[in-house]
């Protein structure tokens, strides 16, 4: 537990930050004298490759945890008996759910990481993505479970440190770290509460089915509320790069009063 989850979880963002800072520093050294437009368009091509690698890395690590939890539950209840395989529908449902989640929440995260934390340029994007992909793929290779989000955030912080004159908004980083610390106990509380509610309906027969349906309805309702709340001030391609309000440290773009967004 400590060796395979907790230590890697704490060390991986630091390793990623060091790696990305080193990469960024030398990228700008090597490309000195190249015209800015040429540099950015060249590295934009590179970003297509590195972003693909991050997706692959994400699949080798994060996606497996979701599938693991569901398969574990199926094993525990006797609905699945093979120890060396995962039911196909579990893989499909997890892949669809992760893709849907990225589709729904992606822009907000892109804005926080790429505009709020550090205002990154294409070369920094390549450095951050390749160090994320390398850290995650290497960790997957050794069987370490870690968070793609933590690694990617460490990488982006690193690119801010590695480029001379770049600004890292440490308040944004602090907010994110607070969020990470909160999610662990919050997930435990929600998981426990939902379990108690479901169990109140009974543990076998029609009662357990009703319990499961009620649990599902509660989670769907909460998820729907969060989604609708985020739609109130939607972030998309039109405002993802709008000026960042340094005072609030939230992803919320300025309401369009003066044409900034």
């Amino acid at each position, binding site marked *: 537990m400590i060796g395979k989850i907790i*230590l890697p979880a704490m060390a991986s963002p630091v390793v990623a930050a060091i790696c990305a800072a080193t990469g960024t520093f030398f990228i700008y050294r090597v490309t000195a004298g190249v*015209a800015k437009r040429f540099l950015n368009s*060249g590295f934009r091509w590179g970003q297509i490759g590195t972003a693909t690698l991050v997706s692959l890395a994400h699949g*080798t690590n994060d996606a497996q945890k979701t599938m693991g939890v569901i398969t574990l539950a199926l094993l525990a209840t006797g609905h699945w008996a093979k120890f060396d395989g995962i039911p196909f529908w579990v893989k499909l449902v997890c892949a669809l759910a992760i893709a849907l989640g990225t589709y729904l929440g992606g822009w907000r995260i892109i804005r926080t990481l790429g505009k709020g934390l550090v205002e990154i340029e294409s*070369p920094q994007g*390549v450095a951050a993505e390749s*160090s994320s*992909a390398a850290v995650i793929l290497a960790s997957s290779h050794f069987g370490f479970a870690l968070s793609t989000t933590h690694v990617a955030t460490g990488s982006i912080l690193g690119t801010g440190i590695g480029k001379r004159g770049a600004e890292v908004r440490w308040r944004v980083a602090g907010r994110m770290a607070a969020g990470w610390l909160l999610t662990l106990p919050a997930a435990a509380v929600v998981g426990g509460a939902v379990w108690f509610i479901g169990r109140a309906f009974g543990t076998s027969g029609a009662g357990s089915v009703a319990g499961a349906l009620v649990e599902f309805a509660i989670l769907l309702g909460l998820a729907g509320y969060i989604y609708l709340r985020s739609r109130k001030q939607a972030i998309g391609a039109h405002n993802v790069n709008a000026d960042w309000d340094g005072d609030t440290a939230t992803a919320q773009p300025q309401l369009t009063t003066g044409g900034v967004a």
Partner: protein
Amino acid sequence: MSAVGYDLKFALETIWKVGLASLALGAGLPVLFAAGIRSLAWGSGGEAEDSHAKPSPIGKVLAAVIFLVVIYAIVSGIVYVIATGKGANYDITFKHLIPEIYKKVN
């Protein structure tokens, strides 16, 4: 050694390895890619260079070679991860330039 002690030792050794591999590939490859962009600018000249220098064809050749090396490294890295991942019964050799996958003999 206690279970926790063994766990810690494993974690620290592996974090060290992950760090080295990441530095070599995660920082090394983008810097190599940057060298490719540098050469391409050298080869293109004019608008591509702050100095508006004349294009030199060697730059383009050099850029092509560097980009090929980068692509080779990425593809072999992916093949390596797939072939040797947990649960896979394969190993890989780079003896001849093109990575070869073979079944492990137990």
